């Protein structure tokens, strides 16, 4: 009995330190904002806040999918290329439609049609990732690395290496428009985050994601269809990368063949800074969002302070290291 009481009090201490650890990145963010607002009078303005939010919305889309993948103890390196291919497909269909000279057929696309086609491509590449990983037991790192190359190559083939530009004003609305006083990309990423939070915390599917990452053997023996869940998770990651691709394309009014290069690394950085364990089973969507915001604010601040972009990369690298070191120290204390 005494031992149980002791455990209880120990538990409340644990709970306290744990919630402190959760707020740690929030505190770090506040300190960061405080320092930046002293150093630059342009930082703490509403315009700049929307600016940051708009800039990180793409990373939030991708990083949300990446979080789900990482929670299953996987990784998805293909998202940057998938983003580029989806954007290019959407732009190409919107601008040129599909021509079948042999059948003397031309199919035009509406914005909705082109966007759906782009999303479909992203999701299909995700299915392909999940299929090679589950069916052939290819390690996720390798399988998605292959698709990174494949999708980039397909993007080059589709665009012939040139940007596809001039997509029309209504399409630009997705990336640059405002709705109810909030930028459209922020709406999109916000809704995605909300749905992902609901998914991870309130649904069976979400619970299975954590269980698989925590112990795949035990999950299989509990009757969970591991392959199905994994394929679904990679499909979602692919679809979210495609959404990112459409936002990027719309914002630039142009699909760049080399869009999204190293975006997968930014997404992984957000996931890691957000406290999700790369070995799976532990982490949260909100952590990742916080991670993405920290990276976004840091980038923005360094630009405002006229720090060279080369130095920005160095700083970002150290922030990632610092975040993981603090996280490790915390889990040791627990």
């Amino acid at each position, binding site marked *: 009995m005494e031992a149980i009481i002791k455990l209880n009090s*120990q538990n409340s201490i644990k709970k306290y330190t744990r919630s402190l650890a959760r707020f740690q990145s929030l505190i770090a963010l506040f300190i960061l904002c405080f320092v930046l607002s002293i150093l630059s009078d342009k930082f703490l303005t509403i315009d700049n806040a929307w600016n940051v939010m708009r800039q990180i919305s793409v990373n939030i889309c991708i990083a949300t999918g990446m979080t789900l993948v990482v929670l299953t103890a996987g990784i998805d390196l293909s998202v940057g290329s998938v983003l580029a291919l989806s954007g290019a497909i959407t732009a190409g269909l919107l601008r040129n439609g599909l021509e079948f000279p042999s059948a003397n057929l031309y199919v035009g696309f509406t914005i909705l049609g082109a966007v759906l086609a782009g999303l479909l491509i992203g999701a299909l590449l995700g299915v392909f990732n999940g299929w090679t990983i589950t069916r052939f037991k290819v390690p996720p790192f390798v399988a998605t690395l292959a698709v990174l190359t494949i999708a980039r190559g397909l993007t080059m083939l589709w665009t012939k290496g040139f940007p596809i530009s001039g997509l029309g004003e209504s399409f630009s609305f997705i990336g640059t428009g405002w709705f109810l006083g909030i930028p459209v990309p922020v709406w999109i990423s916000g809704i995605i985050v909300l749905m992902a939070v609901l998914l991870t915390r309130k649904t069976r599917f979400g619970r299975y994601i954590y269980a698989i990452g925590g112990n795949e053997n035990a999950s299989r023996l*509990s*009757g969970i269809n591991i392959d199905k869940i994994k394929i679904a998770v990679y499909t979602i990651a692919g679809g979210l990368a495609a959404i990112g691709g459409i936002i990027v394309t719309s914002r630039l009014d142009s699909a760049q063949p080399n869009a999204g290069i190293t975006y997968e690394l930014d997404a992984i950085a957000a996931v890691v800074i957000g406290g999700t364990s790369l070995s799976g089973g532990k982490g949260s969507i909100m952590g990742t969002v916080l991670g993405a915001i920290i990276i976004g604010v840091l980038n923005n601040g360094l630009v405002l302070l006229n720090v060279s972009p080369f130095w920005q990369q160095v700083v970002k690298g150290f922030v990632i290291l610092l975040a993981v070191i603090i996280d490790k120290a915390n889990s040791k204390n627990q």
Partner: protein
Amino acid sequence: MLAVENITKRFPGVIALNNVSMELYPGKVNAILGENGAGKSTLMKILSGVYPDYEGRILYKDEPVYFTSVREAQACGIAIIHQELNLIPYLNIRENIFLGREILNKWGLLDKEAMRNRTKALLKRLKLDLDPDTPVSQLKIGQQQVVEIAKALLIDADVIIMDEPTSAISDHEVDVLFGIIENLRKENKIIVYISHKLDELFRIADRFVVLRDGCSIESGDMKGMDQDSLIQKMVGRHISIIRKQKEDQSVKDELLRIENLSLRHSDKAENVLKDISFSLGRGEILGLFGLMGAGRTELMEALFGLHPKRTVGSIYVDGKHMHFSSPADAIKAGLALVPEDRKKDGLVLGMDVRTNICLTTLDDLETGGLLNHDKECDLAEKYIGELRIKTPSDKQAVNNLSGGNQQKIVLAKWLAKKPKVLMLDEPTRGIDINAKNEIYNIILQLADAGIGIIVVSSELPEILAISDRILVLSEGRLTAEIPVSSASENVILKAAIPKTI
């Protein structure tokens, strides 16, 4: 002599060892006894330098010693052989034995010849007839243990601590191990031997030390002790052995029938299970006995749909022919498996008690497509109460609980699913006597409630105590089917020992 004086070790909120003192003598096998959680492992970790922060002191050869790392303890001549062996499977015997203390030639490169010769000599001394260049992954567990002992001998350890060395090896290997221990004793080494298996201690140990709840209770000579009095010292009260009336021998009300089940080996062109047929009745407890490698676990896995591509044969549940292509299919048909290794296969260790209990029945716990928090809590509370799972709350992560409570959580997870057939693979391995008895009682109650139960066990007393009927596996074949009324340890063992050499 190695003496421990007034050692106290605290973990946050718990006292693992409370003022423990004991003396360990050279030329003797010193057995440390105690239930799980009594503090045996903690004490051994202090002796071998894993935990440097503790109160009290260690005296070795009348000198106080203090180790801040395993290396320091080894340098002083104290070696520990853990229950989970610490060998690297891809390296060979020689490389494992010399890991971290490689012999170098004058160029600073590895002197393989010298190391090979030393290894050969060590293996010869331990009567292990193997080439030093054999990869460790090809060795049996018993042989790997001998390699661990060779490692201890290489550093010329005078104190050798063995933690549950016989938990995973066959009787023959136990004999070999005991022969080695005999010789080490003659060499005047201090052997510290931890085991749950009391009969073993009567064979090998000279002295005993009993730990209970972190305190040292008693020590003395094994001579003149008997099993009951030792158990009483360990648990502090007498335990009666449970028994169930078994009169009926015929299978009534057949629940599960297996016909000609075979399982192909995962890489070799041979069968691990050969032509196995049996049936299981409602409310019956079927004991499945076999030595290591007889195919017990494989049989459970094959029944549970884990090896669909390698399995042939027919499975009938309630008279209906079934085909299981995954555990999910088997679960749907009413089967449940409590696996042998609960940490590896039974639990998501980082998750809490509630989540683990609810994992198999999440589809019943939803309202409107979302998980219902209240239903989850109710289900967890129900089984924490019914199975008397000792946990501060249902939000406790399961890796902080004892083995017995962890096993109950695995059971709870399956009971929530209301199975028709419950298969338990070594359900009491590595858990203390009290928890064992609780698990036995649960099994008996479930059988009374009409569930068909298969218990796989390598402990004969356990099989004899709870089964209605006993099946014996040997080398993948069913070699005997014995009603418990005519079963004895001799009959069962005779059927279990392999006929081919």
